[in-house]
């Protein structure tokens, strides 16, 4: 087990290194310099700016400097946000993204699991059909559409909730709902299909034959096995929620990381793009690492398989 975790950790580190290097060199390919679009600046100031960002050094030296800074947790300075450091921007904005993201994870898991279980227990009845419809709609409606509809109906028309901002506790409702729609639909579908499979398995029949009550069978035998595929979905779910949060934060005017990410792209603020890409990369890879480890704990069979990879 320790070896398995260690291996996964190492591979996460390798991936992060590749991502960091890829971002660095991709940003170096872009022709021109980051200050090209601004008003003509005197040569002297430009030199000073170049020296400040280390752009006057040869590329390999910049690369080493960049890696060294990364190891110390320094993501550099933003080039457009009034010379704030990237670390500072992340520190200030992450709290909002983290809050809605975390709530969205909880809501998706709860809603998805409950819907999936209800559907499986009522196989081929109307509750099952309703769940399938919700699940298919969830993966078919783009999240910016879901967010806009929510904002229009609950915010503008009915005026139950504030259209934007994140000041009241009720302000969390719409962004979190919009974010959880897709993952919840996916989890519901996943849970339903594995529950159906598990419920017809022999050990469930055995449990029933032993005279165990329905609830014990459900919780101790069925659910435990049905939850396995959901665990593997933690990684992709994090990715979904992060890309979703970029959209949702923009629509509901929340000053989270996603909003800065969009801004950095429209402003071509390279250091900020690099920094936020890496930050997102770290979260996503950490989520994948957690998934791998959790899977190793939940599924005892994983110990027998050698190495990672698919198929």
């Amino acid at each position, binding site marked *: 087990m320790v070896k398995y975790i260690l291996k996964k950790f190492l591979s*996460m580190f390798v991936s992060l290194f590749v991502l960091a290097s890829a971002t660095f060199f*991709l940003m170096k390919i872009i022709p021109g310099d980051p200050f090209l679009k601004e008003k003509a600046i005197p040569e002297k100031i430009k030199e000073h700016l170049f020296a400040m960002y280390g752009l006057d050094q040869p590329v390999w030296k910049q690369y080493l400097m960049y890696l060294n800074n990364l190891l110390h947790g320094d993501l550099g300075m933003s080039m457009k946000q009034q010379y704030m450091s990237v670390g500072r921007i992340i520190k200030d904005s992450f709290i909002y993204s983290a809050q809605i993201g975390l709530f969205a994870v909880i809501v998706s898991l709860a809603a998805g699991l409950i819907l999936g279980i209800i559907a499986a227990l009522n196989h081929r009845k109307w509750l099952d059909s309703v769940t399938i419809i919700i699940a298919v709609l969830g993966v078919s409606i783009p999240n910016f559409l879901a967010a806009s509809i929510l904002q229009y109906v609950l915010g*503008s028309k009915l005026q139950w909730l504030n259209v934007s901002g994140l000041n009241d506790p009720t302000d969390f409702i719409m962004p979190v709902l919009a974010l959880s729609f897709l993952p919840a639909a996916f989890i519901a579908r996943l849970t339903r299909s594995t529950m159906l499979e598990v419920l017809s398995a022999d050990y469930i029949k055995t449990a029933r034959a032993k005279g165990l009550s329905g609830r014990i069978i459900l919780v101790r035998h069925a659910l435990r096995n049905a939850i396995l595929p959901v665990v593997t979905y933690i990684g992709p779910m994090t990715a979904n929620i992060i890309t979703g949060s970029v959209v949702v934060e923009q629509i509901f005017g929340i000053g989270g990381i996603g909003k800065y990410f969009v801004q950095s792209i429209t402003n071509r603020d390279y250091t900020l793009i690099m920094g936020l890409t890496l930050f997102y990369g770290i979260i996503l890879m950490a989520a994948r690492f957690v998934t791998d480890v959790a899977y190793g704990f939940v599924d005892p069979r994983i110990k027998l398989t050698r190495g990672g990879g698919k198929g």
Partner: protein
Amino acid sequence: MKDQSFTPDQFTKLGNDKKSSEPVVRESISAWKDAWQRLSSNKIAMLSLIILLLVSLMAIIGPHISGQDFQTNHLKEKNLSPSGTYWFGTDDLGRDLFSRTWMGAGISLQVGLYAALADLALGVIIGGIMGYFGGRVDEILNRFCEILYSIPSMLIIILLIVIMSPSMFTIVLALSITGWISMAWIVRGQIIQLKNQEYVMAAQALGANTARILFRHLIPNAMGPIIVTLTLTVPSAIFAEAFLSFLGLGVQSPAASLGTMINDAIKAWTLYPWRMIFPAAVISITMLCFNIFGDGLRDALDPKMKK
């Protein structure tokens, strides 16, 4: 040992006596026919297919039937609601939304289609190589795929488009750079599973070369899961393009995809809801139909995977 030889008169001709052979109860059907029968009995999937064909047809002829060009600005007729002249209304530059919506649908579908085809080409070649050769080659390629796969694809896609400046070509390129890996893994899994089957050994014994075995025997038999993955790649590519449009990295004006249209409309959509509703409806219906049809196809082509 006595030399044994046969002469023709030792043989008697037996007629094609149908009574003595085992009676054929049912007409024999090929795997494809079987799959088609299963698919065509799935009414919702067939309905989705019909709607998809209609959307594709409209994407081709739609921009030409309203008599309004998709990119001509009518600056005096901005943000008009749907009417006899402008069936879906006009946008903030007075462009006809009917033509634009179907043009956008065409571009979105093309992005999805090209991305899926690029995934297919790369995935089948690399997955085929991995699965067929196995051993060292497989191990090295697999390691490479794992590293590439572990990097969050959306981030790489965004970075690539920021660098290459957005266009349909760069979007498809960026999507397929990260997209082929899962296809390669599926092909690899299929090939490994199939290559130990007897008919491959028979082909080898008959002297078929590697390319023939790969393309004539292994790939056609691995087709089922590949087609299903392909069908489900299209909507996820359309989704990805819509997300990129939201970042301002979608197809650039005057061309438009459904994603860019929705993104343009979102800013003022409480005032001009029709600018949002039509492209949003088309994209949602298309995605829905692709997902349902993909599921139906999976059930039909691979009964083992049926849930």
